[in-house]
């Protein structure tokens, strides 16, 4: 059970991408690098039992099972734009709660400056781990204030149903103003740290993928422009690509997090 979110910016006015496309066009390299791989192969993922360990610079480290996580805060439906670093986008109705609700519960210490998210890496369940595309497990991270922003969401479902495995079941991060890869799937550990976490794509290709990776039409990827995007399922084959919005259209909600920062340097 969930209610429509009343949070500012939480309901994109754009039309949601059809369910079929949201669940068949995925980047989830643990199940293969082709977009269609996760939908075909993620059935081997075992989502129960599931425990998330919350550790590091917190007064109350804890291990929470899925049941406890589902009850941690009231479920909300939020319709977010999702912009992939590759230049395509979707609009997805997620179900979950604000990451801030969990952060308050574990009480970060004064040393906590960053949050590191580690995702599942089990070769028995994930055939894609055989490839050396990335160093497994997949790790992502946010600054603590970014993680505390109410838009940052822990999602357990989409389109009113339990999160499909190819979309990162049983729980995943959703950070709508950053490129999609910042939103880790199938999370097993959340660690609060003083130092900036070493995140997977940044380690793999630092010049191409920065720690921040905020959606920014003015800062191009070294190999392609980020000024425009193609909306999956919505834009016709011969339709021009649509302009990409600063912070993916969430500037009013998150712009203040980066006041005074050179976003070309901290890309």
């Amino acid at each position: 059970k969930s209610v429509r979110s009343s949070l500012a910016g939480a309901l994109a006015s754009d039309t949601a991408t059809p369910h079929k496309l949201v669940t068949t066009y995925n980047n989830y390299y643990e199940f293969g690098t082709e977009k269609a791989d996760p939908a075909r192969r993620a059935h081997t993922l075992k989502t129960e039992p599931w425990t998330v360990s919350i550790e590091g610079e917190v007064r109350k480290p804890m291990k929470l099972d899925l049941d406890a996580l589902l009850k941690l805060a009231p479920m909300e439906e939020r319709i977010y734009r999702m912009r992939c670093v590759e230049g395509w986008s979707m609009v997805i109705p997620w179900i979950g709660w604000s990451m801030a609700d969990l952060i308050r519960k574990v009480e970060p210490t004064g040393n906590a400056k960053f949050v590191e998210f580690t995702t599942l890496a089990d070769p028995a369940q994930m055939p894609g781990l055989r490839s050396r595309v990335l160093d497994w497990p997949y790790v992502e991270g946010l600054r603590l204030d970014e993680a505390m922003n109410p838009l940052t969401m822990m999602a357990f479902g989409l389109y009113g149903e339990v999160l499909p495995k190819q979309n990162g079941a049983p729980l995943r991060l959703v950070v709508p103003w950053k490129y999609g890869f910042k939103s880790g799937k199938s999370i097993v550990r959340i660690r609060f740290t003083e130092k900036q976490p070493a995140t997977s794509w940044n380690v793999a290709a630092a010049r191409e993928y920065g720690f921040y990776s905020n959606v920014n039409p003015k800062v191009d990827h070294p190999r392609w422009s980020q000024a425009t995007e193609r909306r999956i399922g919505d834009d016709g084959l011969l339709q021009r690509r649509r302009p990409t919005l600063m912070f993916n259209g969430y500037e009013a909600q998150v712009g203040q997090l980066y006041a005074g920062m050179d976003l070309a340097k901290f890309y």
Partner: protein
Amino acid sequence: MPAWTSPSSTEPRRPRRPLLLHPLAQPLLVLLGLLPLAELIWRIAADALGANPAEALIRQTGDWTLRMLCLTLAVTPLREALGLPALARFRRTLGLFVYFYALLHLSAYAWLDMGLDPAAVVTDILKRPFILVGFLALLLLTPLAATSFNAAIRRLGAVRWKRLHRAVYAVAGLALLHFFWMRAGKQDFAEVAVYAAVIALLLGWRLRGMLARRRSA
């Protein structure tokens, strides 16, 4: 049985024409070469190109360019290894298909990704090394396609024509680099490795022949 009753001596023996020399072999190859394009057109019409049809079209035309290039480069080694001189006549057709799919690849990119805006295309090509490399490969292919008819060979003379058409080896290198660079972000080199291995094998075979000839000379 008297010799004159033997059928072999009475019926004139028709020379066996190898299948490769059949008059329909060439048109058949053209039809086969057009099949990938037909499939793409059918999938556009049937809306069966997946969630990102533009990306699918750009990628598949690129894939077919590389495949045609491998086939073209395979003609000479196969001809010599199998002792089938008749294969030679298919090389030109295959080579022209490389150019054909490369042009489709460029058109798909310019149209679907760049909105057919010439300024955007030029800026993008100059700004992005992996696209520049692909574009150079296409440029380098252009004189080869333009001199692929008999009159051009006569006019250039066989030696100069041959020298010019060795540029295809550079095209192969540039095309591979283009593909490699495109995949570098995802660090997903499995497919690149397959094409690289095939092309290395085909070029390595030529290199070995060249060295052997030099040694014997």
